[in-house]
């Protein structure tokens, strides 16, 4: 008896230890994967830069480049070194937060302070539109129940949205809302609203309305809502029909709690898979609604051939996608620890 009593806590601590090891191994492998993805993707970007035709420095600076500026730029992109060493230096500078200085678009401004705040706007549009779509998709799925032939009339238009690119949706939305508001202004006021498709640079605080419109067109365009709706409805239906839920129901327990717990993982998977596509879509939509985000920044910079800004924004996108994936993986693992047990 006493022996068992002695053994027990030891056993427990051993099990605890094992769990800790498993978790840290899992976390380590995920981090390693994220890091290698970051390296690979940034290398692709660097290699693209290096493969530019002609001398990149002349291309960027044009005729008005002073020799110091040229030397600076060369050092920044490691153009004097071979591709591997150059990448190493460039990546090291980028990691330590030095993404270079804007040259033509906003001369002298550090890229980091341009791209950072702008990217927050982009990310928030992407996340808000994804979350809203997921919420509405679930709502509609619960409202409609399992697919029935009669719903074809209702779902037909939703399916047609599958094909509408988000920027076309955004243009139509802008146009329609513009017509409505102009109508209300009476007198045929020729002053367009501030978010009308003529670029003006402005702060996010002035732009709640365009922010919402951008999120709405992202949700409707590119088949985002349609795909989410189809996937989540299928998920909901299969879960609803599964024996597991009937067992819970038979036990008289709260069905909703179990449903939600089991829907988190597939929902997060959908979120993860969709995020890069949505971020891409935000780029153009932001531009249409002249939101002060990184898409707008990217396109303006590209227009001015401001390579450091374009590269900086691209890196932000890649970094964000990888970090979001990591976070979502972690959340998934916390909800469903089987993920951790499975790996390695």
């Amino acid at each position, binding site marked *: 008896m006493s022996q068992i009593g002695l053994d027990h806590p030891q056993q427990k601590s051993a099990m605890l230890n094992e769990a800790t090891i498993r978790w840290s191994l899992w976390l380590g492998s995920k981090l390693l994967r994220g890091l290698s993805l970051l390296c690979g993707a940034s290398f692709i970007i660097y290699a693209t830069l290096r493969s530019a035709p002609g001398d990149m420095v002349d291309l960027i600076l044009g005729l008005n480049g002073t020799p110091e500026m040229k030397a600076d730029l060369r050092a920044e992109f490691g153009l004097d070194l071979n591709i591997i060493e150059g990448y190493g230096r460039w990546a090291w500078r980028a990691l330590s937060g030095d993404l270079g200085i804007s040259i033509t678009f906003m001369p002298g401004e550090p890229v980091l302070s341009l791209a950072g705040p702008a990217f927050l706007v982009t990310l928030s549009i992407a996340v808000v539109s994804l979350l809203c779509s997921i919420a509405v998709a679930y709502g509609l799925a619960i409202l409609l129940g399992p697919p029935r032939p009669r719903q074809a009339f209702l779902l037909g238009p939703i399916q047609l949205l*599958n*094909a509408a690119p988000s920027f076309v949706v955004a243009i139509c939305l802008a146009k329609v809302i513009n017509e409505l508001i102009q109508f209300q202004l009476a007198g045929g006021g020729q002053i367009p609203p501030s978010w009308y498709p003529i670029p003006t640079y402005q702060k996010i605080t002035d732009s709640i309305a365009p922010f919402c419109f951008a999120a709405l067109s992202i949700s409707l365009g590119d088949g985002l809502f349609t795909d989410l709706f189809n996937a989540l409805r299928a998920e909901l239906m299969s879960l609803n029909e599964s024996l597991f839920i009937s067992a819970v129901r038979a036990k008289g327990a709260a069905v909703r709690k179990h449903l939600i717990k089991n829907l988190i993982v597939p929902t997060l998977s959908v979120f993860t898979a969709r995020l890069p596509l949505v971020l891409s879509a935000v780029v153009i939509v932001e531009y249409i609604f002249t939101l002060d985000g990184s898409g707008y920044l990217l396109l303006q910079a590209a227009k001015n051939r401001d390579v450091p800004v*374009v590269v900086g924004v*691209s890196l932000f996108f890649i970094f964000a996608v990888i970090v979001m994936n990591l976070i979502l993986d972690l959340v998934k693992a916390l909800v469903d620890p089987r993920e951790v047990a499975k790996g390695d």
Partner: protein
Amino acid sequence: MTGQSTGQSTRQSTWYSTWYSTWHSAWKEQPLSFKLSSIIVVLVLCFGVINPFISYDPVLDVELSRRDLAPSWEYWMGTDGQGRSVALRLFKGIEAFFFPGLIAGLFAAFVGGVLGALCGYFGGWIGRSLSAVLELIDTLPRMVFLVLICTIFPPSILLISIISSVLFIPSIATIIRRKVEALGAEDYILAHVAHGFHPLKIISYHILWLQCRALLTRQMIFVFSYVLFIETALSYLGDYGVQEPYPSWGNMVAQSRISAVAWPWALPALAIIITIAALLAFGDGIARREEEVKR
């Protein structure tokens, strides 16, 4: 006698007749949406092919006296702010994405299909490295990467479409690899090896052609519609795509966005949506049909 005659008929069943029979059975049994979409796809194909033979001078077409005319018999989609026929510009706008899209689609389907089949056939580390590359490319936001390309290289729609087709290759290869692995589980490959076929013939004919052509067609159409999307998007933004005065559906929308009348921008926008919808529905229909026949 009967053997002879049936033998004759089978000899005539070439690749186009098998494709035709697939399409025809799909036509008979698919819903209305498939019929509509295939009509639109055929129209786009025909227009795209005859496009280069019809000359159009966008500068000579400008006639300010007839600007913003409503649709009529003469200009049956109306005219835009510079008095140019919207219908004619819509038609000429197909040229901007048609051949680049076709080339990109064929390239992506061909390379992706061959890579996927090779990985599925040989398996092992080739397959693993392919999925690593796929994951890598999936972390690149496509749009941002394309803008980067446009900034560094002199932008042309052809370059953009080739790059976007390259971005699609890993996903196509993975789809094909999964398919081949599923076939391998059914002893499909082994049975053909045992029968004495050359591995190249097994990969190209028995796997890619006989088993994966619907999948590949669908992926090709998908890449084509992506090129259409990216071309119109970039032309809308104005700096990288087709430049005024040459027409593209994207820059038609951009040009007329502040026009007082609806048709100059609404019709190209509608054309973009309908064409992409038709392409996707058509690809889905063909693929679904092929799956149904198998059972």
